[in-house]
């Protein structure tokens, strides 16, 4: 009898806990609808300043530095929009778990960083009602913001959320295009007797004998210096495939497995070449790529460390930082060769394999969403408006205070005071419109103009800002991802012989239901485009 009572009591406790959690977790959904419509009158300035809590990703900010910067910023914000800012400086490693828990727990946070690649997936949380839909609020509270960010990027931010198609977060105006480049070690190339400028301007052809010749010479050169474990081709295998085959990542591809390919024209990505979304591994291009990679691997140009998923990234980082590679792969960001050259102490050259292109990923790489539990969504949007249009706010949050973390130079650039900057380094790309920042002295005075020109020249892919909703193929997706995990990396890194492995792989993919996924993606794309 007593046992039963104890059981009941315990049960009541558990249920009580669950109920509390449930209420708080689901509180988000109804609040979202009501808050956007009812409380829009409360924006008049005057009265107590509103405290807005914002959660950033990838920060490296010490508590003292944070309070120092925010104290000064808050004075400014209070005058401008009668609000104060309270920042949670999320770090890379903790962000996913902490944010997901906080979202589910209905924490009192007004704005969250979100994107389409981490665990607080923008599209999914928009669907589940965690973000405030911004379409109606934007003209009133974010007019400048609407102007500041190009139409194409807003298009990318549109998603099918709980309240219909719309914008559920403010996209950051940062590196808004994708371009795959060969990362060439110019210093080593020159040592081999090549004319670096000539080789780089001509471009590299993965299938040419010149390419192989280069690798061979590098290997022999290093061996003659006593370095026998030198491997000239140090790549991210999955990036290599996209780079060589001119395929784009289909936004919304399976979590943890890129099985879909979209082929585009390498010189004019917007040109319609009649592409459909295809099974990445079933194309003749892929077979050719895998055969070539295997061949290069057999000749000793690719390290076994690259071919092991466990060591691949560490090996890549180690080789890059010590400059012990000849050719690598890099998803390009404007100006990164300068940073890399400085960091690695070699002449790093970026040789484009394709022209830069835009797709939905361009607008969803970094976004700021307003939480559905926020009591002041209008104020939050007013703040985001300022953050993206007011250089003072953006500079202060991103770079800190003048005289504390940086000094202004006469040519309009800034130089960091390293000692304090190391205690205040948020993730620059993770905030918003970084094009209103002052250039650093390393970047040079015209950096942001060139930056904008580069990205504005990028063409959109023919399928535009299409996002594949993979929730319709969840079961097949899980099965396919398992097969993928077993074979894909080995094939793309040249570890396994495609002659024997590729047919088995394709067969297993089909059995797991890859065709359903491809068909679903194409169906959604057709609907999206019509």
């Amino acid at each position, binding site marked *: 009898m*007593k046992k039963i009572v104890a059981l009941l009591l*315990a049960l009541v406790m558990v249920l009580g806990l669950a109920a509390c959690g449930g209420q708080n977790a689901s509180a988000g959904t109804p609040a979202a609808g009501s808050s956007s419509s009812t409380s829009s009158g409360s924006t008049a300035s005057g009265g107590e300043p509103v405290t807005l809590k914002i959660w950033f990703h990838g920060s490296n900010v010490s508590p003292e530095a944070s309070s120092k910067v925010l104290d000064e910023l808050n004075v400014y914000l209070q005058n401008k929009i009668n609000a104060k800012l309270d920042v949670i400086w999320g770090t890379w*490693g903790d962000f996913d*778990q*902490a944010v997901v828990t*906080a979202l589910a727990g209905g924490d009192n946070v007004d704005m969250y960083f979100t994107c389409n690649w981490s665990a607080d997936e923008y599209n999914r949380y928009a669907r589940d009602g965690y973000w405030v839909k911004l379409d109606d609020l934007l003209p009133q509270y974010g007019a400048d913001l609407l102007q500041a960010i190009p139409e194409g990027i807003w298009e990318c931010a549109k998603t099918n959320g709980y309240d219909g198609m719309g914008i559920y977060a403010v996209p950051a105006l940062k590196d808004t295009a994708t371009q795959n480049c060969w990362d060439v070690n110019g210093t080593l190339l020159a040592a081999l007797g090549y004319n670096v400028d000539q080789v780089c301007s001509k471009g590299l052809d993965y299938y040419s004998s010149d390419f192989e010749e280069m690798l061979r010479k590098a290997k022999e050169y290093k061996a003659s210096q006593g370095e026998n474990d030198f491997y000239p081709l140090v790549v991210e295998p999955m990036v290599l495939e996209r780079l060589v085959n001119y395929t784009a990542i289909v936004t919304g591809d399976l979590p943890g497995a890129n099985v879909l390919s979209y082929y585009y024209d390498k010189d004019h990505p917007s040109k319609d070449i009649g592409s459909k979304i295809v099974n990445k591994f079933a194309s003749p291009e892929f077979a050719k790529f895998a055969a070539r990679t295997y061949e290069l691997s057999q000749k000793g140009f690719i390290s076994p460390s690259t071919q092991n998923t466990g060591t691949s990234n560490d090996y890549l980082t180690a080789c890059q930082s010590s400059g012990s590679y000849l050719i690598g792969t890099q*998803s390009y960001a404007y100006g990164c060769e300068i940073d890399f050259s400085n960091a690695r102490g070699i002449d790093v050259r970026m040789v484009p394999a394709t022209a830069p292109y835009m797709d939905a990923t361009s607008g969803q790489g970094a976004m700021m969403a307003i939480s559905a539990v926020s009591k002041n969504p209008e104020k939050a949007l007013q703040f985001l408006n300022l953050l993206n249009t007011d250089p003072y706010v953006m500079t202060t949050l991103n770079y800190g205070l003048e005289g504390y973390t940086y000094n202004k130079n006469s040519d309009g650039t800034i130089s960091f005071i390293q000692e304090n900057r190391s205690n205040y380094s948020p993730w620059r790309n993770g905030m918003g419109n970084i094009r209103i920042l002052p250039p650093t002295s390393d970047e040079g005075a015209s950096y942001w103009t060139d930056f904008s020109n580069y990205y504005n020249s990028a063409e959109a892919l023919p399928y535009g800002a299409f996002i594949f909703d993979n929730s319709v193929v969840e079961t097949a997706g899980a099965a396919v991802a398992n097969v993928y995990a077993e074979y894909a990396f080995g094939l793309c890194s040249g570890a396994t012989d495609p002659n024997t492995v590729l047919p088995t792989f394709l067969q297993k993919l089909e059995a797991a239901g890859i065709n359903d996924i491809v068909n679903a993606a194409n169906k959604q794309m057709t609907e999206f485009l019509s």
Partner: protein
Amino acid sequence: MKSNHRLNTISAGTEAVFHVIIGLFSICCIIPFIFVIIISFSAESSIREIGYSFIPRAWSTETYAYAVQRLPQIWRSYFNSILITVVGTLLSTLMCALYSYALFRPDFKYRNFFTFFSFFTMIFGGGLVPTYVICTQVLGLNENYAALIVPLLVSPFNIIIMRTFFKSSVPLELIEAATIDGSGEYSTFFRVVLPIAKPGLATIALLNSLAYWNDWYQSLLFIKQNKVLQPLQALLMELQNNVEYLNRMSAALGSSAIQEAMRAPTQTLRMVLVVLIVVPIACAYPFFQRYIVAGLTVGSVKG
């Protein structure tokens, strides 16, 4: 006879074999730790060139100097870890002793009920989100030391161990005798029972202190802004997680990830932190060890 076998001994050959086996096992346990120490004293350039190695090309204490001088948070985290461990261990051991003592006393009417009550939580947990909501919103365990201590206060497993220990080592007659001599409940507990139960308490205290010292998860959940409160383990975990995350997400982040990774602490710095974390708890162990051996053997036949 000189080779007279003592009672309960085994032959010299067997003993040698056992010594070798146990010796090898000990070496397996200690080598990774020695390796970590070696790496922490390796020069960064050596790691870059030849990777982790027992014999690095160059030695260096630079990283230790860097950690000590340039990361003021390390000392604060050290303090936090020690504070949390000491306060947490004292409180949780006291709670455990009090709870299990009540369960051990046969004259406590609801002992079965409360035994089951604590046991139940071992099988069914509340789940992460409800626990988080209760802690932050109902109990106010957010951005403070209490958030790092309170969630780990009661462990049903320890309660069961302690109750069994009481049962096997504290004769009920002793309590009766104390009562007859005019001792009140508190006086009986603190002055008669606890001194007998020292080995058990020490075991529980060691388990608790290990749990507190090694815990980083509470900090991840509850310390998001006021990061000066981070214990050492959380600091290490954060650095480690950052590096892993950037590796994992490098495809999505592109060159951003590489730029960020360059700012991440070096591999030697991570090893230095491991050494700094392990040393104090390794020093605490011998202090408890005497009691633990006693705790393990008590309850068997007494000599």
